[in-house]
């Protein structure tokens, strides 16, 4: 009965993600419709004749009603066809497939860093609320949020990568070891701005759990040490940070765009920056869709995780 409750909850959340995804697709499709400029002119060049432009419009399907164009777009997306880049040389799908692993590794490593940094500092800060350590961590957290990611990236390159030689100055690796090494500094730059937000939430959760009656009741029953911390503090305190971390994915993604440029990582963020400079709409559209879907998926996973941590949310 309880298990069906959990699976029911997961199923309902999955169903809710479907209309959300459709709205996303509609927005991404509409994005192209509202930006200034004529796609046909983009293809044919500014000196093309009206007849040529019209022929291109028919070829691109732009003469069709908008809703038909949308259905057509949905069909293409469903088959993984994102169109080609502006130069026509590469398929957008190929571009995404080659950049996605880089961005995924970057995000994964920086999520691990974020959780480690936030977890350690939150536990330290919560030891004595409003004590010296708590205040110092609070000041550091304010710095962390305030430091621009691109600047921190440059500082890490100049201050760590160059003098030590332990990390590449930029670019990506081709074996797991070199990939991880290349990801460390950019992931760190990314984590520094996100970790403080998570830390603050975790810290207040820990303080609250330690003051709770269930914590006292567990102590009265003889639970102590790490079992007390794990079962009656961290487990309860983790609930808000987990959903927050899911929400912070948007921040990590936009940070990834910046960091990939700073470190010259061949990921989706770098492709997006380049596409924006070249006004390459197919690429922008494809990447926007991928990023949005990633946010939907991560939030879905976050919701499910929260439900497993705190059964009260499954109503």
């Amino acid at each position, binding site marked *: 009965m309880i298990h069906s409750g959990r699976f029911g909850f997961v199923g309902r959340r999955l169903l809710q993600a479907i209309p959300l995804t459709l709205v996303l697709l509609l927005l991404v499709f509409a994005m192209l419709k509202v930006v200034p400029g004529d796609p046909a002119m983009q293809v044919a060049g500014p000196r093309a004749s009206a007849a040529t432009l019209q022929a291109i419009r028919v070829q691109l399907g732009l003469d069709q009603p908008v809703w038909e164009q949308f259905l057509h777009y949905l069909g293409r997306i469903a088959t993984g066809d994102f169109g080609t880049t502006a130069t026509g040389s590469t398929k957008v799908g190929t571009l995404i497939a080659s950049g996605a692993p880089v961005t995924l590794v970057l995000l994964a490593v920086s999520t691990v860093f974020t959780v480690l940094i936030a977890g350690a500092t939150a536990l330290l800060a919560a030891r004595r609320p409003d004590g010296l350590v708590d205040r110092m961590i609070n000041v550091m957290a304010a710095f962390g949020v305030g430091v621009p990611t691109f600047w921190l990236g440059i500082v890490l390159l100049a201050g760590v990568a160059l003098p030590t030689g332990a990390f590449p100055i930029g670019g990506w690796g081709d074996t797991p070891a070199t990939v991880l090494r290349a990801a460390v500094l950019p992931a760190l730059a990314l984590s520094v701005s996100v970790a403080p937000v998570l830390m603050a939430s975790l810290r207040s959760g820990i303080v609250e759990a330690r003051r709770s009656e*269930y914590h*006292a009741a567990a102590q*009265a*029953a*003889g*639970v*102590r040490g790490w079992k*007390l911390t794990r079962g009656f503090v961290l487990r309860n305190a983790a609930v808000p940070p987990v959903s927050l971390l899911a929400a912070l994915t948007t921040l990590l993604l936009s940070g990834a765009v910046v960091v990939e440029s700073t470190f010259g990582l061949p990921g989706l963020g770098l492709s997006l920056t380049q596409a924006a400079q070249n006004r390459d709409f197919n690429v922008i559209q494809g990447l926007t869709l991928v990023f949005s879907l990633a946010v939907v998926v991560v939030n879905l996973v976050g919701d499910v995780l929260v439900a497993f*941590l*705190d059964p009260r949310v499954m109503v």
Partner: protein
Amino acid sequence: MSPLLRITDLVLETGPAAAPVRPVSHVGFEVAHGEAFGLVGESGSGKSLTLRAVIGLLPEGVRQAGGTLELERDGAMRPYRFAEVRGRGIGMVFQEPMTALNPTMRVGDLVTAGPRARYGWSRRAARSRAVDLLAEVGMPDPKAQARMWPHQLSGGLRQRVMIAMALATEPSVLLCDEPTTALDVAVQDQILRLLHRIRTERGLSIVFVTHDLGVVRRLCDRVAVMYAGQVVETGRVEEVFTRPTHPYSAGLLRSMPTQDTPRDRPLAAIPGGQPGAGDRPEGCRFAPRCGHALPACAGLAHVLAAVPGSPSRSACIRVADLGGPPLDREALLSPLPGGTA
């Protein structure tokens, strides 16, 4: 009966160490093997803080500034460290079963959390023990309920889970902090019967903190009445309830409605209010509200003295002159209704 738990001269402080405020000053009491002891008083009297101090779970900012806590072990009273008695000797039932049960743990896991941490029980052993305990506290379907979450249970069932959690560690003393206050009257009655039954079956001692005199009357053998951080009177329940030896207890009892209390007249009340921990008067703290007070009361040192002709002990120097009509023994001492919980 031989003593099991003895609290002597307990002093609790809060605020800056230089100018502390004492919510509890020099409280002492003794609980015998198998005895139910009531600690009764109004909000702010320090009864709950006293109870929490017994197991060292004081709220943030309150500290123990003095006193001895002793538990009987191997035939002798010995001072204890909290780590020794938590989950091994002393158990505690909290007031709010909603907030005192971890919402992220299944009922069965919660009930045996103590012994699992303490004795390293295997998960499987803990599970079957949890079902036994839930059955002992009268859960209607213990096997299914062990798999449930606290929020899926009613208030009364949650309090039963709380009691099972405290019993899991096989305590010899059960501290109960107003365990029925958050429940409705019908459920209160069930929980009281349950505690009474468990106490009889297990030979447990119970320390019961409450503001409800009716609960004390039904469940307890002896009682200490607390006022403004001190015990003002202590004795056997039937004595204190029929021949109170302190004007405060007498006033409390007179303000308690019984079946025969005329409905058209207001209940008797003690004029004034209990002073807060920060502004307590010198001498007898009840004197400013007391109809029997003498000038000497304002300079009185607090001593719980034996009362001539009574088994109770009282802090009042005017015991001999209290007089007043004796309280109606029959109305106040209706027996605990029979039956099991």
